[in-house]
């Protein structure tokens, strides 16, 4: 059973590395969002430090949305998706593995870039660590929720925008608990663990609901 899962995982990872750009474009977009905000807000360092975690989270959310539309579309266009459905493997697991590979190729670079971008926003080391940790736990949820949108818009030529509109409302809980646990680490009286554990729970729920809903949508659009 692990053989086919590994083959799929390696193929997806290899494709995103070879086609190139997906990780870099995401990080550059993240950088663009984060650098543009101080220009809009003004050079108030205290204000920036206070809203920094929120900016990083919103930047990560937008950067994640950027690459999601190709999650299934490339496989559908060349007929691979049809064959995957006939392969005799559970489609839900196939989607989970594809999401994992996609997250490693596009989500993980965002997490790695976050501490560097946090410097731009005048975050102190503690909040830098807190934001990075919450992004590490929370961005998989964004990819998994995004997979639902990606499979719903798989047959549309320009589904990227519709995908963003569909996914953003569903991603709001993740955003709320991601930002609030990062904030909790900075401001003392509030416990960090409570929102953080809820964020972990959201990711685990997304790991179940995302693939199931996404598989249903893909089966429906197979025609």
């Amino acid at each position, binding site marked *: 059973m692990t*053989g*086919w899962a*590994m*083959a*799929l995982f390696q*193929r997806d990872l*290899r*494709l995103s590395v*070879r*086609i190139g750009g997906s990780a870099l474009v995401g990080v550059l977009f993240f950088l663009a969002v984060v650098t543009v905000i101080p220009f809009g807000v003004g050079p108030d360092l205290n204000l920036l430090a206070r809203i920094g975690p929120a900016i990083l989270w919103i930047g990560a959310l937008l950067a994640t949305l950027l690459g999601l539309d190709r999650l299934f579309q490339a496989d559908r266009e*060349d*007929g*691979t998706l*049809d*064959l*995957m*459905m*006939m*392969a*005799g*493997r559970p489609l839900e697991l196939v989607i989970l593995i594809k999401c994992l590979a996609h997250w490693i190729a596009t989500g993980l670079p965002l997490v790695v870039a976050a501490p560097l971008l946090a410097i731009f926003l005048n975050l102190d080391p503690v909040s830098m660590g807190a934001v990075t940790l919450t992004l590490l736990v929370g961005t998989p949820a964004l990819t998994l929720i995004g997979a639902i949108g990606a499979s719903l818009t798989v047959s549309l030529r320009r589904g990227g925008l519709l995908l963003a509109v569909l996914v953003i409302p569903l991603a709001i809980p993740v955003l709320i608990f991601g930002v609030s646990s990062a904030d909790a680490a900075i401001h003392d009286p509030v416990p960090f663990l409570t929102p953080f554990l809820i964020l972990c729970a959201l990711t685990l729920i997304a790991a179940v609901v995302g693939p199931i809903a996404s598989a249903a949508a893909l089966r429906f659009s*197979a*025609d």
Partner: protein
Amino acid sequence: MRSSLLKLIAENLTIDRGGRRVFQDLSFSLSQGSALVVTGANGIGKSSLLRTLAGLVPLAAGTIRLEGGETDRLPQEQAHYFGHQDAVKPALSVLENLRFWQNFAAASVCEDFTGSTLSPSLVLETLGIGHTAHLPAAYLSAGQRRRLSLSRLLVTPRPVWLMDEPTSALDKTSEQQLLGIMNDHLASGGLIVTATHTELVLDRVETLHLQAADPAEQAPEEALL
């Protein structure tokens, strides 16, 4: 009673695509070692029939069974679909493309079907694209891509082959080779359903000719829908 003989049975297939009825109450059965050639005018539903058998188009009514096959697998999971799209990733090398399908698709064998698992490099060699094994698939010509797609059928044994216009983009030599491969598959106890416009010289052929219903006959039915 021994019923392990493979038999593909379709009963009263009815499918709708885009709100239009493509065909209604189509039944056939195909026994082991024979090929069903589906003919008919463009747009009559040949591809739809193959995609239905592949489980990619939902049935409005009817059933598809593979008698004597693995009971815990759906018929489409014991079938290979060789359609118009090649499912070849240009960024991967030819061998990587083929290895992925060998590892990913579940093989399906039963006592009466003795399809063997061939190694990817051997299959590529047989199909005359062995020299391209380490090239990115992006550099292949249309015919070579088609042959790479065909080699997928040989590395994973499955008894049923669903082939939509299998000879398209192939030259005369490759076409002969394809026929050889198809005959070998039939000889080893497989089944083939193919939609085609060209004459295919296969060992045991049954023909299913799809034809539009007589308009006068169809009128009352249309009224019902």
